[in-house]
């Protein structure tokens, strides 16, 4: 399989297996995450998608196989370690405090300050300006007041805010866990646009989704998991849309693949 844009891998999994007592959640999976590309991780519930992203984000250390970042095999010490290496994970519907302002949410835990000693204070003007600038770059133009409560933003806008924040704080790899599953068509579109903007800025995106249309819309590369194994891996255009949808729906192609596995 060849890829067109770049062969430089940001994260590479080689023969990764994750076993929990008595259960093999992920078996012998090899994947490449490349900058400026969207890798869509597809599969049923229980196929091993969650385990795989937890390996990528440093929550689990794989039982077997290697994880390489920038070509070097590493052992991630935890989510914090992954984050320090530029791997940010965004979970569905999470990551914001609804009753706090856009600016405060954006910089929560990393607030810019001005002044010294007792007069040291949150630099609201700077925070607001940067927050608005960053979400605007991801296509959110409706939000023009950084003092606005995040709870007044739509679900899609909130996901975009979390993505913008991750990018601002240096994410090179964005792992998006079902970012569109709870959203309507328009809202999902906002998130997909944000994904595209991130990709265009050279960020590697790992997108986990149930929705075939969303995957087809933004995906450069697709990996289908079933029973913890990688059953299909193909680049954009290598497979017909109908086949992909059929795969995701667990249709005939999937059943065939699963039969082969068994």
């Amino acid at each position, binding site marked *: 399989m060849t890829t067109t844009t770049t062969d430089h891998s940001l994260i590479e999994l080689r023969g990764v297996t994750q076993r929990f007592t008595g259960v093999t959640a992920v078996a012998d999976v090899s994947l490449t995450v490349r900058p400026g590309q969207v890798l869509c991780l597809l599969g049923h519930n229980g196929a091993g998608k969650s385990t795989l992203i937890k390996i990528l984000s440093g929550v689990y250390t794989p039982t077997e196989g290697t994880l390489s970042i920038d070509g070097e095999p590493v052992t991630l010490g935890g989510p914090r370690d992954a984050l320090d290496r530029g791997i940010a994970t965004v979970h569905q519907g*999470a*990551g*914001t*405090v*609804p*009753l*706090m302002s856009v600016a*405060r949410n954006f*910089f*929560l*835990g*990393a*607030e810019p*300050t001005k002044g010294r000693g007792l007069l*040291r*204070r*949150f630099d*609201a003007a700077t925070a607001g300006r940067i927050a608005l600038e960053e979400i605007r770059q991801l296509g959110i133009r*409706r939000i*023009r007041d950084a003092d*606005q*409560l995040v*709870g*007044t*933003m*739509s679900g899609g806008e909130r996901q975009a805010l979390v993505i913008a924040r991750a990018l601002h704080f240096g994410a090179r790899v964005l792992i998006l866990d079902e970012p569109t599953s709870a959203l309507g068509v*328009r809202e999902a579109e906002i998130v997909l646009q944000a994904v595209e903007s991130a990709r265009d800025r050279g960020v590697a995106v790992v997108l986990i989704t149930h929705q075939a249309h969303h995957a087809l819309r933004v995906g450069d590369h697709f990996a289908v998991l079933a029973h913890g194994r990688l059953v299909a891996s193909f680049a954009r255009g290598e497979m017909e849309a109908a086949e992909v949808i059929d795969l995701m729906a667990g249709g005939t192609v999937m059943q065939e693949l699963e039969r082969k596995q068994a």
Partner: protein
Amino acid sequence: MTIDQAAAAPAVPDEQSEPLGRSLIARTARRPEFGALIGAVAVYVFFLVTASGSGFTSVDGTASWLDTAAELGVVATPVALLLIAGEFDLSIGSVVGATSAIVAIGSGTYTMPQWASIPLAIGFGLAVGLVNGLVATRTNLPSFIVTLASSLVVGGGALGLSRALSGSTAVTLAPEPSVQAVFGSKAGQFQVSIVWWLAITVVAWWVLTRTRTGSWIYATGGAPDVARDAGVPTARVKVGLFMATSAGAALVGVLQTIAYSGGDVTRGSSFIFDGVIAAVIGGVLLQGGYGSTVGVLLGTATYGIVSIGIFYTGWNTDYAQLFLGALLLVAVMANNYFRKLALSGR
């Protein structure tokens, strides 16, 4: 916005469609203290009418309700901050009584300098808060239970020790002039506790609205998981606020002891719930994550107006409780409504 996009999305308001005037009113209505402002004004007008001619609006009448509000406000303000961070402190009543006894027994029964017994009392308060905070955050038990336990421990211990050391629960004390000036002076009927109340309110306002600690307090109560993931030291935030409520309670104990020239272990019990009542009437959400210092100031003022207003009407003062109870219920319902309004974005 192009025409077909707008047609496809009638539910999304256009940026420019909202008239400025309405926007200003809507913005005001979304503030957490809006309900508290309505409540305070309504209650004041109510007593203005029902207690007219009785001196409620006179200088002394005003001083009277401000004094009552101030004593409560000194502890209600940190209590509100703790509530915003999602925690509860039932031990403040016992701390008021215990610190009152520390000052009165230390410098009344015994010969400790008052400038030594007062810092000792404040230090005791901080220590109780530290223990409350550490136990609540380390065990993850509800702070309701943790502080109920510490309330009994501190209250029972103080009562027993007070009787053992001074033979009584109430001890008189003649304040030194400098102590009197700082904690017990008066201008007419206006007590110095009003200054303490306003100073604490300004500090709390600064912390909540101007510092990153303010963000951390809101996030700790509003979405603890998000806060932790973002690297907010939620446990440290809570421990700090438990220490602030206990220190506030200790200051009330000191203020009362000096103002009334004597301490009483049993004095503080009313503060346990009055602090929460003032905070909730002031628009603080019991679930945490929402509220403002200005709101608490108004809620505390409302408490003072009701407590003293009833007295001026000539009605039985027992009805003050009934009044506050009804007000509390209305406030809780209004808070939920205003929170929804704040999140509606309109």
